[in-house]
């Protein structure tokens, strides 16, 4: 199987940023696919790349009521992220990602925002492998790298530091059929905003905001070969706590946020270009609460290097 595993899947490299705040509405789907898939880089192999992504929505859920806001129009978040994955050993990978984010509203007078957002770092460990089935755990966290504004409809992020733990069951058989199921718990730190009071479901005289933690489950299934990978997935995210947006109120970082998304991912490795990997992802929000009905597209290029060898041209699968 190892030959399929050299370059980790990269589907929702969307990172945290894709969902983080296109207008606050999706601040928690997280991380590079390599943190959510079951594929490991072999020891001393490194994979790095760049991903561009766009997330957009016009409809959003204000509490459970679906609506549009004519003073915002279509909200767009564009991002460019770098991502890296290194095999400390065949069973232990370290993965990091960092995006630059740009936001914009198509209507109204509100200014978009842009800047470098949060650094995510994770460790992925293969606990056991029995035939085609492996069990993995992933722990990691994220930290804002710049002092961007958090409480603003077009903010690029929410400034919360996070810590996440994930358990994953990954199945991949000799024919390349694969199924992955995982569950994640993300702790989020309180944040500071540039204000003296704010209203959630009550008034609070403080600049500190308590951020609810987040749970996530997902199921993905598809086909892996050396040249091509293709997967479909469904995921469900929910903050554990938080409050509903009141009628005609603004979104707020500590809102209750729930979303169910479906998506597809495809990779292709271009042989004449030293197996340069092209990644594409598409996802759509089916249902949610205090989030946008987001359509996400992403495209990326990834390249792998094997430092066990004398040069990258010697890479063997």
């Amino acid at each position, binding site marked *: 199987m190892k030959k399929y595993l050299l370059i980790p899947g990269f589907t929702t490299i969307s990172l945290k940023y894709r969902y983080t705040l296109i207008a606050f509405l999706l601040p928690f789907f997280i991380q590079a696919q390599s943190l959510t898939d079951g594929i490991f880089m072999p020891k001393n192999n490194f994979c790095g790349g760049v991903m561009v992504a766009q997330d957009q929505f016009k409809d959003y859920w204000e509490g459970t009521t679906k609506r549009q806001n004519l003073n915002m129009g279509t909200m767009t978040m564009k991002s460019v992220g770098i991502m890296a994955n290194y095999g400390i050993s065949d069973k232990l990978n370290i993965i990091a990602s960092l995006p630059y984010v740009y936001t914009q509203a198509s209507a109204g*007078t509100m*200014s978009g925002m842009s800047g470098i957002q949060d650094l995510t770092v994770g460790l992925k460990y293969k606990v056991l492998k029995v035939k085609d089935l492996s069990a993995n755990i992933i722990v990691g966290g994220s930290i804002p790298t710049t002092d961007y504004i958090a409480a603003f409809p077009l903010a690029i992020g929410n400034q919360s530091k996070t810590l996440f733990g994930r358990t994953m069951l990954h199945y991949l058989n000799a024919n390349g059929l694969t199924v992955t199921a995982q569950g994640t718990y993300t702790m989020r730190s309180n944040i500071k*905003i540039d204000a003296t009071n704010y209203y959630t479901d009550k008034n609070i*005289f403080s600049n500190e905001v308590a951020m609810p933690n987040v749970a996530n489950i997902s199921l993905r299934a598809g086909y892996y070969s050396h040249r091509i990978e293709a997967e479909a997935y469904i995921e469900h995210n929910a903050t554990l706590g938080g409050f509903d947006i009141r009628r005609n109120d603004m979104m707020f970082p500590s809102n209750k946020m729930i979303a169910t998304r479906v998506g597809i991912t495809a990779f292709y490795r271009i042989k004449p270009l030293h197996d340069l990997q092209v990644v594409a992802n598409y996802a759509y929000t089916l249902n949610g609460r205090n989030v946008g009905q987001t359509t996400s597209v992403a495209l990326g290029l990834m390249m792998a290097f094997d430092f066990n060898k004398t040069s990258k041209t010697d890479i063997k699968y």
Partner: protein
Amino acid sequence: MNNFNIKIKHSLSFLSNVSILVLSLMIFSLISCNKDIIEKSTEWTELAPTKLDENAGNWKPCVLVNADDIKIPEALSTTTPQYQQELQEVKTAQANLTNSQKAAIKYWSAGVTLRWNEIMRALVAKHNLAPQNNTDGTYPIPNQANPFAYPEFPFSNPPYAARAYAYVCVAQYDALVAAYKLKQQYKRPAPYKIDATITPSVLKSDLPTYPSEDAALSSASVELLKFLFPTEVEFLTVKAQEASFYKMWAGAAVRSDIVAGDSLGRAVAAKVLAKVKTDGMKNAIGTQTLWDSLAANRNAIGEEPWKSMESPSRPPMLPFYGGVRVWLIPNVAAVRPAPPVSTKSAEIQKQITEVKSYTTNPTRENLAIVHFWADGTGTQTPPGHWNAIACDDIKKAQMSEVRTARNLALLNMSLMDAAISCWDTKSYYYYPRPSQLDKSIKTLTGLPNFPSYTSGHSTFSGAAATVLGYIFPSNKNHYDDLAKEASNSRLFGGIHYRMDCEVGLQVGTNIGNFAIQRAKTDGAE
């Protein structure tokens, strides 16, 4: 090549080790963190007034003609069986305190006037939410007679909030002046001075306790707040009960003190309510014909009138609030500033260019200023922000209840006059916002739905800094700096021209000076 790769490999493993370390630190810091938010005022200690102000009954009230306008029954003599029974009730209460009563003692003993101010600001924040449009593109208006129906009454925007703060603070002050007057008339001491077996759980005071100042100011507050925030009656009733009785639970007042204070507070409130109900607020919203006339006035002289940048177009916020009755200034015309530069002038183009320079690639420092002073939806509003600043400094100075109420009344009368004057100016000149004259200006905070000239934040801040600078002379420069920053925040945010901010600040200062004139003659100095 080999060496190069080995180097990279070494740096990568080094990076991995660093990352693992960083991760462990993050784990530690997150696990050890506590999510509870501590509001600063929960840590306020018990009020220990530096001055008793026992003669405040001679201070000049705001609405009452004389401090002794209100009559209450004569105080029971401490030797009567009925009073002795009340002492027994105090002892029983002290011996059987519930946890919520203990919490109430701790909460209210920090200062009853300050606590009501905080409660009122929280109510403003809760109700500070603009109604959503109807499907036909019109906007519903909150209805005081049917306050629970959408949109809930009130929408406590800055002018509404300024009025609420002013009337409640005035009622509190007048109730306290009347209460202090009667205290000196009856001179009935605290129960622990009559019965040595009573040990109060609050600080002892030489102030006579009949009638209770806590009950007087709480009942006055609640009667006003019920009118201003009619959906909150249940919540307010519970708070007023606690505020009125906490000193009895603490061994520092008897029931008849509280009953007398309550009836005094209600009587004062009735007089203030008669005033608030006839202050002209009901005409502040206007009608389509009146709104159209504001634009027509400007078109007639060749000026571009303000228009709503919201979609669907929203009527301006309370455009005839300028007609509401003022407190301190003679009338709005007396403080109305000179006209702004023409919407077609080269000068306004220069000012537009300046606005745009602030919204293009804003500095983080400017963004922080914009957001710190934004005080928009879901907040206590700019007048509330200045009340919060005042309350912090009053708390530090440990002012008596009556002096606290007097200073907050002065502050809030000037803030309401600032609102009235500024809203008069806004409708009088009906000047477009920067984003209307230059569509490419994108704002860093919400664009308020009313005319630009002059800035409300600047007018409020000029008035507040002037009044507070008079009350706390050693902080004067600090308040002026805050006011300047609040004023600039609107320019930095791209929602006001420099002229709106500078003129607003001047007019506000002017209004603040009227409050100082009153302060010099109200007998409190």
